[in-house]
């Protein structure tokens, strides 16, 4: 089990805001573990740029351009006997617009009694735009290299099914990759992978701990398939977080959806809980070996 965490979520699920707030939080934290951007200077520049906008100008990051891709990675390291030990590494990719959904969860349009799937994973790769193939390869290699995953779940997604479909597709990729890697049969349960389902924006919708009930409603396919079928029960856990804090004020858009106004003082809650859990998972795994 390596210590790489792959972060996934649909567009606007709060991945970037979470990483930026986490970056600020860990930077200020006077702990043994230190944020380490060695060989990841681009990520530091990207996160610190957005952090400046968020903390000083009180502006939420804009949606990334369609079909653009940006790797965001950092290590949490500590000094042990004159060597730098990486406790864990967080890695994700910021994709623009609906690109991730296009790649992993095709759109289905049943209007005019016609089924249009754009694009479908059954379409041969050579018929897809070349940038899609490269992006899919990048994501697949992240899945292959990671032993832990964080799924960001948006309580206010564009379409319930789309988010579930997307996370279920990523989950399938994780199951396939790990079964293949460990030479397991297709009905084998995967033992050495941990998944944290993180319900974001709990300031907008939730201030209670009925996280599992909400996940059952929002992403039944992905949540149940992970928690009850293909992974070890204790290695799948739910969390709820707010990156901006419970003092965040909300506005309602014309379509009825809510959006946040960045508060003067950003007070994230629970954002380090998934990391603590991952750290424990890595330690458990090392001890078991």
């Amino acid at each position, binding site marked *: 089990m390596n210590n790489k965490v792959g972060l996934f979520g649909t567009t606007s699920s709060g991945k970037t805001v979470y990483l930026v707030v986490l970056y600020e939080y860990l930077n200020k934290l006077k702990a043994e573990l230190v944020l380490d951007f060695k060989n990841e200077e681009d990520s530091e520049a990207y996160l610190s740029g957005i952090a400046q906008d968020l903390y000083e100008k009180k502006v939420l990051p804009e949606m990334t351009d369609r079909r653009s891709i940006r790797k965001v990675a950092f290590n949490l390291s500590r000094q042990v006997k004159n060597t730098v030990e990486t406790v864990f590494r967080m890695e994700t990719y910021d994709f623009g617009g609906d690109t991730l959904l296009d790649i992993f969860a095709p759109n289905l349009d049943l209007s005019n009694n016609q089924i249009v799937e754009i694009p479908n994973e059954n379409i041969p790769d050579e018929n897809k735009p070349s940038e899609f193939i490269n992006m899919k390869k990048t994501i697949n290699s992240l899945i292959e290299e990671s032993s832990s995953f964080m799924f960001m779940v948006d309580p206010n997604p564009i379409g319930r099914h789309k988010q579930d479909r997307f996370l279920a597709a990523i989950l399938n990729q994780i199951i396939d990759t790990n079964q293949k890697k460990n030479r397991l049969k297709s*009905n084998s349960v995967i033992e050495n992978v941990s998944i944290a389902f993180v319900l974001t924006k709990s300031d907008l919708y939730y201030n209670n701990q009925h996280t599992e009930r909400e996940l059952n409603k929002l992403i039944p396919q992905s949540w149940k398939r992970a928690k009850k079928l293909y992974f070890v029960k204790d290695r799948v856990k739910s969390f709820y977080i707010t990156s901006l804090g419970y003092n965040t004020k909300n506005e309602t858009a014309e379509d009825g959806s809510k959006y946040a106004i960045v508060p003067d003082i950003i007070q994230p809650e629970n954002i380090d809980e998934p990391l603590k859990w991952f750290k424990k998972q890595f330690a458990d795994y090392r001890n078991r070996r």
Partner: protein
Amino acid sequence: MDRRVRIFGIPQAGKTVYLSVLFGEIDRYGFENYILDMRDHADSMDYLSMVLEDLVLQGSTFSTPERQFKELNMKLSYQEDGKVKTAALISTYDLSGEDINIIFDARFHSQIRKSIIPPEFKESQKKIMNMLYTGDCFILLVDPNPIGSTFDDQDTMFTIILRIIKKNKGKRKSQKDKRYGIVEGIKIAFCISKSDLIDIPDAREFVEQKMPFTYKYLEINFKNNFKCIPISSLGYNAETRQYPMKENIRPINVLEPLRFFLDK
């Protein structure tokens, strides 16, 4: 345990609506210890979700485009001893308009007329036959208010289906024996769909009266290993006898066939 459930019925009998509602019910509220596992059936998941969304949000049913054959699958699984085990694989097909009639029409099953099946249906027919040969539990969906067809049409179609099953699974003394005996180990749920539209005091009596050939065939050849279940995918509305709109969908008895199949 691994049950292979197949759903059959005339066009507009409510196969897609039933499967979509079943998908929605199990997805949302669960079913015993089983989990809906659409890992290998992402296409079906998309399709069923969209039909369900159409039903819930717009209160309308989706009618399948002409000349389209879509196989729909849904798997119920559970975790045991480090393995994911399948409890049931539920399959049906989505065919439009009269396409299914052409495929199941009695005259096409005589040796003489086999050659006149339109070529575009041959592939679909092959898939449907494969479903019949490989299934061990069958949901036969009866439309109590058939539009554009009659109870006789349904009676004929179900008798053909049962004959095919008997020919495939019926006991024989030897490979050469042409007499097929009683079918064992096959469960048939005779489901009267849209049961909210008419009064059905006794489901078994209803099937016996409306589809006498099918009923007798079942009694004789399937060792009474069948059950008649009135279901309503959309919900009962005694006052208006109309389809419920939007969020008022309250399925009745939709899980009963599965309980019957999974009952040891």
